[in-house]
């Protein structure tokens, strides 16, 4: 189902965080949101997930605005992994992943055989098959992030939104999460939308890049056509070089210096 934002504005208090923003996400693709801190990436993800109401404009999924979707039906289409997910003390990995089934269950949350199978699949897909009866608090940061992805998988929503899924992980675990998402996208046709800080990872794994600055989209397209030296300077305020590997056609950026810091120093 197609997810798009139509001229949405979002305010936090008096400041405008998303300003008349429109975006249509490609189905079955991995889209990365890039932009400096405070450019509105997280806010856009929350608005796309429906956990935040725009003051004007609307987010449309399929044939209806998000506000017109009943909560559970929406949760079967869209899953959001927040930047700082929290879990109560003493929760077991299997219990948490089972909560992902709740949009498919009745009011008591009774487990069906199908639920058990899907949870087992979600745990296996994230390499956590042996972790079901472990406590969440006993896992490492990378393992915990995979548990949260497993929860979103158990939800079986075709669209997966992730807010900086790699920020607090070391490099090895970052790549692990990115490759897991790539596999899920390839094998199950999942539409993945995530915000990232690492421009090189975004260039490497995304089919589409969305670059944001101060609540607006300043560039949107395939990495090769979107990521330019001019964009790095304008949006991220860094001087850098974009290179394309002749064999793999992967893009990579090399950064030389901050433009802001030098600018500030030159002035005084």
């Amino acid at each position: 189902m197609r997810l798009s934002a139509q001229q949405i504005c979002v305010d936090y208090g008096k400041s405008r965080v998303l300003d008349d923003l429109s975006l249509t996400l490609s189905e079955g693709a991995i889209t990365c949101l890039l932009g400096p801190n405070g450019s509105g990436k997280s806010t856009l993800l929350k608005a796309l997930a429906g956990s935040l109401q725009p003051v004007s404009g609307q987010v449309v999924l399929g044939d209806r605005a998000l506000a017109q979707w009943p909560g559970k039906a929406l949760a079967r289409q869209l899953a959001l992994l927040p930047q700082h997910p929290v879990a109560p003390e003493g929760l077991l990995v299997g219990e948490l992943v089972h909560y992902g089934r709740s949009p498919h269950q009745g009011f008591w949350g009774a487990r069906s055989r199908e639920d058990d199978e899907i949870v087992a699949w979600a745990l296996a897909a994230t390499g956590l098959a042996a972790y079901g009866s472990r406590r969440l608090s006993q896992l490492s940061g990378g393992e915990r992030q995979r548990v949260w992805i497993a929860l979103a998988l158990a939800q079986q929503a075709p669209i997966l939104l992730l807010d900086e899924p790699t920020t607090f992980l070391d490099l090895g675990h970052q790549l692990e999460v990115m490759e897991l998402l790539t596999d899920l996208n390839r094998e199950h046709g999942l539409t993945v939308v995530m915000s990232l800080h690492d421009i090189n990872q975004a260039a490497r794994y995304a089919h589409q890049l969305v670059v944001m600055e101060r609540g607006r989209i300043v560039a949107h397209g395939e990495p090769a056509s979107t990521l330019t030296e001019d964009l790095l300077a304008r949006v991220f305020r860094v001087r850098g070089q974009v290179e394309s590997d002749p064999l793999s056609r992967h893009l990579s950026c090399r950064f030389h210096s901050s433009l802001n810091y030098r600018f500030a120093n030159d002035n005084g």
Partner: protein
Amino acid sequence: MSSPGWSLQSSRYRPMMALGLMLLAMAAILINLLAGPVSIPFAVLWQSLWSSVNAAAGPDAVAAEVLWQLRMPRLLLGLLVGGQLAMAGAILQVVLRNPLADSHILGISGGASLLAVLLFLFATDGVLTLAVWDWQVSVLYMMPWAATAGGLLAAGLVFRLSAAGGLTPMRLVLCGIAVASVLNALVGGILAGWGHANAETVLAWLAGTLYGRDWLYVWALLPWSVLGLLLLPVMAKPLNLLQLGEESASSLGLSVTRWRGLSLVVASLLAASAVGMVGPVGFVGLLVPPIAQALVGSDMRRQLPLSGVLGALLVVAADGVGRSMPGVNELPVGVVTSLVGVPFFIYVLRRQS
């Protein structure tokens, strides 16, 4: 770090735990029924369970009277009050995402106390009755309704003040503490400033006591307990999702603001009606949910009912201890729960840091 097999949460230990709890409950109930100024032999309890009270004669009749008119309602009321306070605490700790939350923090107890104290003050000196049209009604029977209204009003005020921030846990706690302080100051101010013949009764009530509670209290509280029991299965799953934080809960299809509000209303009803019966018995809502969580984990479908059972047990046990204190008067149940609760409170604080 405990290995998963070792933890009490493991389902292998559940039958043992259930058995242990049942034994504890039986012991507490028997002691409460049989021990006291009039010691009742077990045979009388057994007999009067199966035959009419009047059938016994002589000293057994007195014993049966004490048993059925004094101790049984007191026991049942203790069980209901304890269960309600503990369940309210469990709900509040989830919604406010704070292991130190209970009905005192949200101002629910304070609101209930304020209206209750006002009611005492309007009562005729000494006899504690209030003229309602032509009848003289004992204020003790009106207390639950007044307290429930007071608790709901206080909770409503806290909601109103926190609504601007979308009922976030932090705002709720801060507004709750502010409202509770004002209400408690008002209660103290009224008591100090008004100087009233009923002040002694009010003070006893404010300590939280089960003394002299008869069947009417049980019948008055029962609807709220039944309401709590009926709502419990509906609340468990939304509370589970609320534990995952606002964004995850909403992404899993829960209407977060609506369920937060509803949970707070239910918790207020449960806590305030209980406070109205026996006064502000402290620390039950604070003490019990973490213990229940340690025993069965944080799934509210298990934690909520277990909290109810443990809370009921705690209040009855505390009342048993308070009654068997050496001395002329008994120790109010609220004093005993506080004496147990304060060290536990400090323990939780230390473990958190």
